[in-house]
């Protein structure tokens, strides 16, 4: 396990940080929101493609070195700092990983170069209820003569309102809650029978409910073997949770930095409010939590790149810690800004709204605590 970035990863991090700072500030998100874009941002997608950010974990040729998930984590952390709405988590991380973990050679040859070039975007359609429960899938894919017919409903799917392709988790065997019997399907978002109902979400990133009504796909749409989709889904969701945790670390760091700056500028009773010990101690405790979460995220990213056996534990650790951290820091950011923190003109509210979405996606802190305990045998 390594906690020190390579020179290349370090450069990538700097590029990503500068890009987020200069082109994807919170004001950019605010402008998108006010224009009703709901997280859709074709120009940014184009710039991300030019920077090569979609292909960070995809080798130029088979077997070549990449920046790894650690590299992609740096970009996600950078975009987390400014709350940027980009397709990177769904496409550059989740879709690329899905093909790498379970795709056939033909699927990999077809899709990975397109992902790397930023030519196609994806959304993972998994959840069917208001809470993350990856095996609770009722959406059915029934075998027909030429392939499968899919029927079901997916809730709050990130990026589904602008993605070109969906990766739909459906049941080919058993019943909701069973680990066995899941399968992953590649479905064009504009396929016949797919209805995308766009959602306006609290974080201004948007999402969509997806209805699948007699959607026909060919056998070639299956990613990995039928019924055994959980073998792909488990590590895929671990990677998603780790990537999101990196983003959350960035959001927490930015909200914390903003709060610190306010503490060092705002005066009351003739004193900087940051000189009050009750606020100093709360800031110091947040900093300790930040440092600890940073270690967990770095360890999880590195474990994913090295294919470590304790990946599941570290993924749950990183997502739970990042969830608790971003919750704490976003709340304190509003509180310590006082009345200003309650206004739409200031930024703390943006961080708090995005934080709750980050916390809920791919397992809340309590979901991951439960899994951590299970993995530890109690």
């Amino acid at each position, binding site marked *: 396990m390594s906690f020190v970035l390579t020179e290349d990863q370090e450069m990538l991090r700097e590029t990503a940080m500068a890009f987020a700072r200069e082109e994807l500030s919170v004001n950019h998100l605010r402008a998108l929101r006010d224009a009703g874009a709901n997280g859709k941002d074709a120009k940014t997608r184009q710039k991300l493609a030019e920077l090569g950010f979609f292909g960070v974990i995809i080798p130029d040729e088979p077997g070549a070195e990449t920046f790894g998930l650690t590299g992609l984590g740096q970009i996600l952390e950078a975009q987390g700092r400014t709350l940027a709405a980009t397709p990177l988590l769904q496409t550059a991380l989740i879709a690329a990983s899905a093909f790498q973990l379970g795709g056939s050679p033909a699927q990999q040859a077809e899709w990975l170069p397109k992902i790397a070039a930023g030519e196609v975007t994806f959304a993972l359609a998994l959840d069917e209820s208001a809470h993350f429960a990856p095996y609770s899938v009722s959406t059915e894919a029934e075998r027909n003569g030429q392939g499968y017919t899919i029927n079901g409903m997916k809730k709050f799917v990130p990026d589904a309102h602008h993605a070109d392709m969906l990766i739909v988790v459906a049941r080919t065997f058993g019943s909701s809650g069973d680990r066995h019997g899941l399968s992953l399907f590649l479905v064009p978002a504009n396929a016949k029978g797919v209805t995308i109902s766009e959602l306006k979400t609290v974080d201004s990133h948007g999402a969509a409910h997806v209805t699948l009504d007699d959607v026909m796909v060919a056998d070639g749409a299956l990613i990995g073997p039928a019924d055994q989709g959980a073998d792909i889904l488990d590590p895929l969701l671990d990677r998603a949770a780790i990537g999101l945790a990196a983003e959350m670390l960035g959001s927490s760091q930015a909200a914390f930095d903003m709060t610190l700056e306010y503490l060092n500028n705002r005066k009351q009773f003739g004193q*900087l409010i940051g000189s009050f010990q009750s606020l100093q101690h709360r800031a110091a405790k947040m900093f300790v939590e930040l440092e600890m979460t940073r270690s967990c995220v770095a360890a999880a990213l590195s474990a994913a790149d090295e294919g470590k056996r304790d990946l599941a534990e570290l993924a749950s650790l990183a997502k739970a810690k990042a969830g608790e951290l971003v919750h704490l820091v976003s709340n304190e950011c509003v509180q310590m800004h006082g009345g200003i923190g309650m206004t739409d003109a200031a930024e703390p509210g943006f961080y708090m709204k995005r934080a709750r979405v980050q916390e809920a996606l791919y397992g809340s802190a*309590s979901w991951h605590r439960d899994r951590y305990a299970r993995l530890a*045998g*109690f």
Partner: protein
Amino acid sequence: MAYDNAEQLEEFRLETRKWLEANCPASMRTPMVDDEVVWGGRNATFKNPDSKLWLDRMAAKGWTAPEWPKEYGGGGLTRAEARVLEQEMRRIKARAPLFSFGLWMFGPALLEFGNHEQKLRFIPDIVKGKTRWCQGYSEPGAGSDLAGLQTRCEDKGDHYLINGQKVWTSYADKADWIFCLVRTDTSTKHEGISFILFDMKSPGVEARPIQLISGESPFCETFFTDVKVPKDQLVGRLNGGWEIAKRLLQFERSSISSSGFGGTGSLSPEEYAKQLIGTDESGRLLDGDLRARLADHRMYAKAFALTVQRQTEQAKAGQAVGHTASILKYGAAKMNQDRHELLIEALGTEGLGWAGEGFDKGALRVTRQWLRSKGNSIEGGTSEINLNVIAKRVLGLKDHQ
């Protein structure tokens, strides 16, 4: 990780492995038991004779202090080599040969601030475990506000004369020498403090153990009445002791946090909870609320361990974060206290015994350790003081104007 001399390092690893295999007695490869810990010193006791053998062999190579200069009896190893030694010791589960405030706190400070003669005189005996040191810092009126200390040290021409009282002096009743903060100028606060060394056998020194809530007496009240100290035992410059004191506190906080306060050896809180509360058919603890808090604690402990590892690696790569000692000391205290509260909760009435029959021996030990752990957020800088250090030195928050 890239070393310029990866080959040499590998060679060092093989040699070290061979040497450890040949020289580490079998009983020194078993988990440490409380009464076999070696603290060294003039009155050292070795309940297990192997522990003396192990100490002497390691000390002869300077490997009780692997990175200290050879000139003063240390191992003279590079950081990379010291890490290899540590890994190889861990591989065979070798015990630490010596526990010592000299190794953890005083030695590193003396190497940085002492003169050549002082280093030659004191460092080798720390490495060999021949001198046991204690720390004269806190006073009845100077705890968190350490710089308020009043123990007087007067210049009497050819010697210094010390009068005053220290408190919370760890193992003062067992130590041979003391490194001590004294007041050499009463007209100013921080700039009137000096750092001085003297023999605990000097006339006028008296140490009285303090009984704690845990029933143990690791700390003493220490009294100094007209104690004469030779002038060459002052470290650094007269009235320049505060800088040394602060640096030494960093070493202290680091050593406390890297040890995680010890307190292992008993079962984990999860194990006790499973035994005493029970699990459902899928193996989940029946008390769901306790289970969540146990998981939370386990995660905190893992995050803490990863942070120690990350900061060590980053320091090696020259990317040190300042004042990590305060961050880690704060986290270690919280972690250890949470762990012991969870242990006591999981044990239920099994954890409420004091002595004698009717209680599991391990549980009785946990009860004492739980009480002892309450000191973790007080000793070596309270948690509140550590939060102050983080707020001011790391985050740059200002004092009241």
